[in-house]
């Protein structure tokens, strides 16, 4: 075991980033022209990084597996993006955003990183507005805000329920501009399948052209992985179907440490599973908890229609248990509370694995306000409902529509049924303060790294982090690394390291194509997902995790004996793409269980049944586990743990209370 150096700059917290920026090395404009940078991924993190680096003069190659960079999974983010602008005058500040994020993460993140994130958050909003991102505005023409879970201020900027779309299209437009001037070469429908290491430095990648099946070599002076999260290890999640771990996992196999892999976020408000054909789960944005109230019947197995259950027979369990934050407790807390009620037999719907998210009282409240505004002195009940429905539709219309399309129920009239689902992964490749992994030249941005959210991410903070990393952090820190490369000259793709990497990718593809079993890739993916959800999901135990590890090992063996990948490798072959990704998920799942087993405490999204308080809250163990668990690949043996101790100099870890 080694101790990891996070390279956190010295000095007072609030000055670290400023001082660091002032002291790190730069690459002058003429030299940037002879430096190549590979950016894998064009989500918020990748598109913003690629565009910014290209603007600065670096020669950038960007990659994504979709048919266009505009389709990265970031596009699906609904609710909003945080920034410490304090436009509401409600007491927000950089320090408060920093504090909320550290506390929300259950004291398992790095103070210096989080503070920097809060500092640059304000620049992000400026940048996006300048690009023409149409954020929601008030009648006076200024930007509007809403609230998200785990905080008591309104600092979330939004564009209806399509914030991720609008931010990504902004970054995509900046990227497109750099493509048009030739500073970025864009490779869409390309999947990176290995990192190439030359003399201990990341110097390129092997990518598969998904249309032709050809393997390509691309070299550069640094490689940035901005490849998103790995929630799809659970098969069912709110992530897009293609989201995967392959890029970071291949880097992990090459020596990059994987940090806190078991920290996964289960989002409390998703549309419940309806059948075994289900391919993904749909999120109902956290913004709905601004106005919606969550409840279950007070009676077990109550089969009455929700509208027929009188007020006094409803249990608004979040408001009951957490009066200070009510329906806006952080996600991990809300998810566990829903599970607790359903496990205790109070769940609703056919499966009994759902709770209600109710808009009736919000419609009444908004309807009355609106009638007052319009000067209608004695509005009828029907009129109030009509007005209230209009207000709710203007705020959340597209989410309500989506719910109706999927379930066939009208959420304006009957409460939505929701249940927690896998949503986000706080874990990821370990990076230092400069966002560089332990492999020199390999940088990791966005959801793919582990850096800022500790054991639980607050809502509207992933968009913030992705854009912070890409627009405002890596453009500085990359220069410091590349300052040594101004005389290196272009990297040859004839280096033996490229031969070797390409061969190992080709060997893996041949192996998968030649198994010729009888089971589809999805069969294995679903089986893995079930193990993960049951044993490494919302609640974990030593016994369950040990079982899961051996089950996953057995499943992996079966996969390599029984999977059938049809077609050939020299053509567009979506089944082969899935097989390569699932092969990596089958290894990652095991590592997640090791990590969960190692962490003998409950914190944030990681809940070990053995470690809880009397009233069922997470019981942290700061004495022993106040560290980042960074795992080295075991090459067939158990993974090796490295620790980075977390030092809290500015906030004192305390028991999180939202009561």
């Amino acid at each position, binding site marked *: 075991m080694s101790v990891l150096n996070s390279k956190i700059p010295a000095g007072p917290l609030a000055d670290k980033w400023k001082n660091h920026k002032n002291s790190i090395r730069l690459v002058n404009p003429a030299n940037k022209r002879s430096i190549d940078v590979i950016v894998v991924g064009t989500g918020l993190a990748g598109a913003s990084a690629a565009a910014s680096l290209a603007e600065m003069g670096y020669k950038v190659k960007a990659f994504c597996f979709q048919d266009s960079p505009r389709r990265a999974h970031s596009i699906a983010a609904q609710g909003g993006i945080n920034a410490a602008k304090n436009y509401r005058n409600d007491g927000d500040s950089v320090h408060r955003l920093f504090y909320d994020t550290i506390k929300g993460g259950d004291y398992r993140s790095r103070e210096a990183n989080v503070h920097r994130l809060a500092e640059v958050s304000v620049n992000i909003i*400026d940048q996006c507005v300048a690009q023409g991102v149409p954020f929601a505005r008030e009648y006076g023409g200024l930007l509007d805000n809403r609230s998200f879970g785990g905080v008591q201020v309104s600092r979330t900027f939004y*564009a209806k329920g399509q914030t991720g779309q609008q931010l990504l299209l902004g970054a995509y437009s900046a990227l497109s501009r750099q493509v048009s001037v030739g500073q970025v070469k864009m490779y869409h429908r390309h999947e990176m399948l290995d990192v190439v290491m030359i003399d201990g430095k990341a110097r390129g990648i092997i990518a598969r052209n998904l249309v032709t099946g050809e393997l390509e070599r691309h070299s550069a002076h640094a490689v940035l992985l901005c490849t998103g999260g790995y929630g799809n290890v659970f098969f069912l999640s709110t992530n897009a*179907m293609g989201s995967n771990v392959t890029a970071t996992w291949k880097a992990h196999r090459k020596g990059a440490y994987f940090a806190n892999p078991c920290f996964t976020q289960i989002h409390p408000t998703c549309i419940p599973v309806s059948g075994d054909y289900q391919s993904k789960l*749909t*999120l109902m944005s956290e913004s709905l908890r601004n106005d919606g109230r969550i409840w279950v019947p007070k009676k077990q197995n109550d089969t009455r229609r929700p509208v027929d259950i009188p007020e006094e027979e409803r249990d608004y369990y979040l408001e009951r248990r957490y009066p200070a934050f009510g329906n806006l407790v952080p996600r991990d807390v809300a998810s566990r509370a829903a599970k607790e009620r359903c496990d205790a037999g109070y769940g609703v719907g056919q499966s009994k694995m759902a709770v209600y998210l109710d808009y009736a009282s919000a419609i009444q409240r908004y309807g009355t306000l609106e009638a007052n505004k319009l000067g209608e002195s004695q509005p009828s009940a029907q009129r109030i409902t009509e007005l209230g429905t209009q207000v709710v539709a203007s705020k959340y219309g597209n989410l309500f529509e989506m719910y109706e*399309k999927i379930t066939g129920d009208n959420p304006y009239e009957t409460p939505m049924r929701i249940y927690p689902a896998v949503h986000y992964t706080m874990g990821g490749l370990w990076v230092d303060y400069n966002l560089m992994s332990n492999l020199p030249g390999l940088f990791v941005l966005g959801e793919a790294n582990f850096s800022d959210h500790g054991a639980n991410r607050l809502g509207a903070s992933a968009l913030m982090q992705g854009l912070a990393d890409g627009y*405002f952090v890596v453009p500085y820190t990359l220069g410091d690394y590349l300052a040594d490369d101004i005389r290196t000259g272009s990297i040859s793709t004839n280096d033996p390291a490229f031969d070797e990497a390409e061969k190992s990718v080709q060997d893996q593809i041949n192996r998968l194509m030649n198994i010729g079993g009888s089971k589809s890739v999805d069969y294995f993916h679903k089986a893995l997902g079930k193990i993960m959800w049951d044993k490494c999901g919302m609640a974990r135990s030593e016994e369950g995790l040990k079982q899961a590890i051996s089950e996953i090992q057995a499943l992996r063996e079966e996969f390599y004996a029984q999977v059938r990948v049809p077609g050939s490798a020299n053509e*567009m072959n979506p089944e082969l793409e899935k097989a390569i990704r699932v092969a990596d998920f089958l290894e990652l799942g095991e590592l997640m269980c090791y990590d969960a087993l190692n962490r003998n405490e409950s914190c944030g999204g990681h809940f070990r049944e053995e470690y809880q308080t009397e009233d069922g809250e997470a019981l942290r163990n700061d004495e022993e586990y106040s560290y980042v668990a960074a795992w080295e690949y075991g090459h067939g043996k158990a993974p090796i743990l490295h620790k980075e101790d977390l030092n809290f100099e500015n906030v004192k870890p305390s028991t999180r209370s939202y009561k």
Partner: protein
Amino acid sequence: MRLNLKIWRQKSAKANGKMVDYTLNEVNPEMSFLEMMDVLNQQLVEWGDEPVAFDHDCREGICGMCSMFINGRAHGPMTGTTTCQLHMRHFKDGDTIVIEPWRAAAFPVIKDLMVDRSAFDRIIQAGGYVSVNTGSAPDANALPIPKENADMAFDAATCIGCGACVATCKNASAMLFVGAKISQLSLLPQGQPEREERAIRMVEQMDKEGFGNCTNTGACEVECPKGISIENIARMNREYLKAKIAQK
């Protein structure tokens, strides 16, 4: 329920394609259309056949990747709905469903139901942006924008770049897509400095890509899953004309 599917199969861009018949039993009305396709593909794999290739990713109606022409309509029979958000409860037991790729010269087929829409990216590259480098932006609230304009710009900006408008149009025109982006930026103060140049460059790129002309049939607006208004085409035409006159 039981369905008869007629699906376009085409091995590659160069190969000839044809319609192939499949029968699918036990389709659950709660499934989405793409989940129905998943079930078909599972069966094909198990039988030793090649599954049907189709584009998809988010399955939430936002990434714009899914693109099926279903019973003669882009994204199928429901208005305001992408293929991934279409559910089988809108079909009946015994129905025959014809599934084809987008058809347009500017969107060549890659395989089966997948097409190449990179022409859209090139149109955006021609001018669908505001030229602002990272770090040079003023405070976000320095410039108030009337809510009405911001809302109109937002509506235009919700285009998901799916290409249903092109697939639907008998001329394979891309004007709804292009009009939406030109409108969004021309409605915002940030878009003003490059307004004229943008309109000219994007329209010229659109023509270069081989998209057809608009003859005002309005089919695109009807089939657009995001309800992008045809007014955006009118606005684009005005922007283009004004820019051309200014250029002279």
